[in-house]
């Protein structure tokens, strides 16, 4: 088919290097080995089925790559699969964090893939903490270790996002910052529902990192006004948030049985708030205020994402979490007043005080007043 045209000839020069080709091939072999025929493999839980959550490879500690596959073939894929669901304190947990996750990290090629994976690892640590807390397994040392690992991943995310921003990729950096911020926010709320003394250090760490991510995001959003591609960035974000809303609605539909009417209604209400923000953003777009539109679309994304994450957590942990309030909006309103910071502290403390009051009543599964 016309293989002599000069474009074709020239384009053929673009190819994977031998090393790249071989590396990818090895990784695919590992993937094949750990993904046997469906009816034999354990089913992955709902929250793990994201597009990037692909690899259950079983490599080695801090060792050269080749050893990874020696071990893989020696031990077989089943163990690494089982490790994926393990929790701190269990036998296979070291395989999960030091082996599976490290190899996945080695194979994230682009900066974006690296950020995504580090953020995923941070979230995994929090998920583990939540699962343990929900079971009532509060070992102080275990939680301290979780907190340490979490902090490392969170810092890497922050660092890479900052580097990306410095390179001028403010749009993508702002996006990831927002994504990480909302993930931490959701986990903060989940963890505080499961709060105990043992989790308080972790909770503080999550909160701090969330604040950092939030500041980083705001800074990047300010910076995006300078970016010549700001209009394209805003358009891209609009497309993404519209997809997100559709995805979130589908998720709620599928889970409405398990969530119940009340929660589903709350979540739908949150999505409506997100859609309002989108509408506002579109108006800004029409007015040519692309940076502001971008900021609004990001906000809408966070609202939708938070609703979905919390709903998923409720299903996963059999927990009730209030979807009705909006921490962010409360914070923004606080900023509008003169003593901005103080107001933020006050409303935050109020909520905490409420939590504690409920906790001391000794009731683990409490339904908050919905429709606040």
């Amino acid at each position, binding site marked *: 088919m016309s293989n002599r045209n000069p474009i074709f000839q020239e384009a053929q*020069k673009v190819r994977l290097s031998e090393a790249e*080709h071989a590396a*990818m091939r090895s990784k695919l072999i590992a993937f094949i080995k750990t993904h046997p025929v469906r009816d034999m493999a354990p089913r992955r839980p709902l929250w793990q089925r994201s597009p990037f959550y692909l690899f259950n490879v079983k490599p080695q500690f801090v060792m050269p790559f080749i050893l990874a596959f020696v071990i893989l073939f020696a031990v077989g894929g089943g163990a690494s699969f089982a490790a994926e669901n393990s929790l701190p304190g269990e036998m296979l947990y070291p395989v999960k964090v030091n082996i599976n996750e490290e190899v996945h990290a080695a194979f994230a090629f682009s900066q974006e893939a690296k950020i995504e994976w580090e953020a995923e690892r941070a979230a995994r640590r929090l998920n583990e903490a939540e699962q343990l807390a929900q079971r009532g397994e509060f070992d102080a040392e275990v939680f301290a270790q979780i907190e340490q690992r979490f902090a490392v991943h969170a810092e890497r995310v922050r660092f890479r996002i900052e580097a990306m921003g410095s390179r001028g990729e403010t749009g993508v950096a702002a996006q990831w910052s927002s994504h990480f911020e909302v993930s931490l926010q959701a986990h903060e709320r989940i963890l505080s529902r499961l709060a105990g003394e043992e989790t308080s250090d972790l909770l503080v760490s999550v909160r701090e990192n969330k604040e950092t991510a939030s500041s980083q995001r705001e800074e990047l959003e300010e910076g995006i006004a300078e970016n010549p591609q700001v209009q394209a960035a805003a358009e891209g974000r609009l497309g993404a948030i519209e997809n997100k809303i559709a995805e979130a609605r589908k998720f709620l539909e599928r889970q409405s049985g398990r969530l119940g009417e009340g929660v589903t209604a709350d979540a739908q209400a949150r999505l409506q708030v997100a859609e309002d923000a989108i509408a506002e953003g579109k108006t800004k777009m029409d007015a040519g205020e692309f940076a502001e539109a971008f900021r609004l679309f990001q906000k809408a994304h966070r609202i939708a994402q938070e609703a979905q994450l919390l709903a998923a957590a409720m299903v996963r942990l059999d927990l009730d979490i209030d979807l009705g309030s909006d921490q962010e909006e409360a914070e923004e309103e606080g900023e509008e007043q003169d003593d901005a910071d103080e107001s933020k502290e006050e409303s935050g403390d109020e909520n905490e005080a409420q939590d504690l009051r409920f906790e001391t009543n000794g009731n683990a599964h409490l339904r908050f007043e919905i429709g606040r």
Partner: protein
Amino acid sequence: MSIHEREFLNAYDQYADALFRHCYFRIHDRERAKDLVQETFTKTWEYLVDGKEVKNMRAFLYRVATNLVIDEARKKKPISLDLLQEEKGFDPGHDPLERTQHMIDAKTIVSYLSRLDPHHKEVVVMRYIDGLGPKEIAKILGETENTVSVRLHRAIQRLRSLVTAYE
């Protein structure tokens, strides 16, 4: 290694480079292109493992890849042509003789491609870089052959106007 595994790896050996090229010329990011190729193959394997049949491996792989590229394009990252100069595999060709003869180099290709809208870019890359015929492209995209031909024709016209505008 089972027969399926062997066939799958053969498909990798045969098509990985071409798929990489395809992704590269559409998203202009080498590292992301690698990620996407990898994801194309792992997604395909998962499909096979589900017990589903793939009649035409090449078309299937391109279909998966093209969908991943579309998702990627939605993020609308800024395209930096300066970054491209740092890429290996590109030789802008400083030979004055080459320039006066209007030799098309890869950087030029990419710069023109980046000015096309996604639908046009898709078919141009498939036809002129992947070397796929209109029939195959139609199969991959799930369109009629006629639609593809028309789109190709328009894309080439657009490219031509871009090229002449810069001469």
